[in-house]
């Protein structure tokens, strides 16, 4: 008799537990579209250098564990974007020698300061060691990219990044790597974990 009672208590407890699980499941929001994303298509990026950036994305996405759709495959989402900056001749000015500078009203003497070509807050006042104010131009490459992942007209992720380097390849590689890392953090490759 008491054995029956214990059995009933166990049955009631188990069913109550199941009910509570079922009600908890009902509260969970439906799976996000991102959780179904396994295969990405990469659309050619707009702007100068777009083809190079697109190729770099395909390589970096595969390296990060994403599956990239071929030409005739239906992808779960589309990676698209534009190249905002792709230039090798971003100029910087290097003043040679001890140079008196004025930055935001503060005067300072800096040895061989380097300043951006336009919009610099530094105003060189002329080196203390020479009346000729000698300077040289230095150049660097800059690549800037905006990217977004779109599925069924919904933007699932978006980010932009720019990077400076001595030449295109390094800058492009760094930008694409940073964006793929950002994407993979927001939406882990292969869907829900």
């Amino acid at each position: 008799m008491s054995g029956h009672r214990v059995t009933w208590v166990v049955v009631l407890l188990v069913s109550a537990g199941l009910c509570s699980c079922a009600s908890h499941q009902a509260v969970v929001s439906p799976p996000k579209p991102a959780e179904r994303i396994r295969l990405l298509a990469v659309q050619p990026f707009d702007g100068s250098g777009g083809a190079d950036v697109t190729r770099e994305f395909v390589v970096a996405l595969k390296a990060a564990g994403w599956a990239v759709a071929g030409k005739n495959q239906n992808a779960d989402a589309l990676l698209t974007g534009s190249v905002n900056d792709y230039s090798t001749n971003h100029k910087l000015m290097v003043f040679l020698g001890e140079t008196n500078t004025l930055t935001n009203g503060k005067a300072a003497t800096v040895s061989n300061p380097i300043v951006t070509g336009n919009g610099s807050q530094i105003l060189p006042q002329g080196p203390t060691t020479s009346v000729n104010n000698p300077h040289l131009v230095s150049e660097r490459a800059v690549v800037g990219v905006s990217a977004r992942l779109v599925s069924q007209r919904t933007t699932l992720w978006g980010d932009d990044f720019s990077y400076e380097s001595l030449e295109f390849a390094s800058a492009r590689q760094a930008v694409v790597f940073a964006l793929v890392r950002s994407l993979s953090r927001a939406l882990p490759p292969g869907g829900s974990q």
Partner: protein
Amino acid sequence: MGNEQWARRVRESLLLPIAHCAFVIGLVIAPVNADPPSAGSAANHYQAGLAYERLGRLQEAYTQLQLACVLDANDPRIALALGIVALRLTREDVAQRNLERSITLDANSAASYYLLALLYEKHKASDRALDSWNRFLELNPDEQLKLEARKHIHFLESNKVVPVS
């Protein structure tokens, strides 16, 4: 007859000493590309190098700055200038050597740290690049370039090695 004699006397008495003086002064002040080399000629090559760089004649600038560097190996400005021109000519070994030398000669050379940081990054020497960016942050007052340096530091610290495609 009297006039000719007078003219000869004037020439002998005034013009010749003046001509001598002019010649001697000319020897002293004129720019001379002569041997043997001296610190003065290093400065001349340095100035010529900067002038060629301004004209966009980088190969000539490079040659002049190399000569300046040979004649005066202890001037950090010459080493930096040669490093910059070598970098623009993609002679990265020469650039790195001279930029590092400019820092050895002047530990506060802000531009040298900036350019070395980019060079080290290109060669995947992340630790050295980080050191250079941090030193650059301490020295250079340009806020725009400081932001750039912080971005590079963050990128390098979060990812020491960029995968090669």
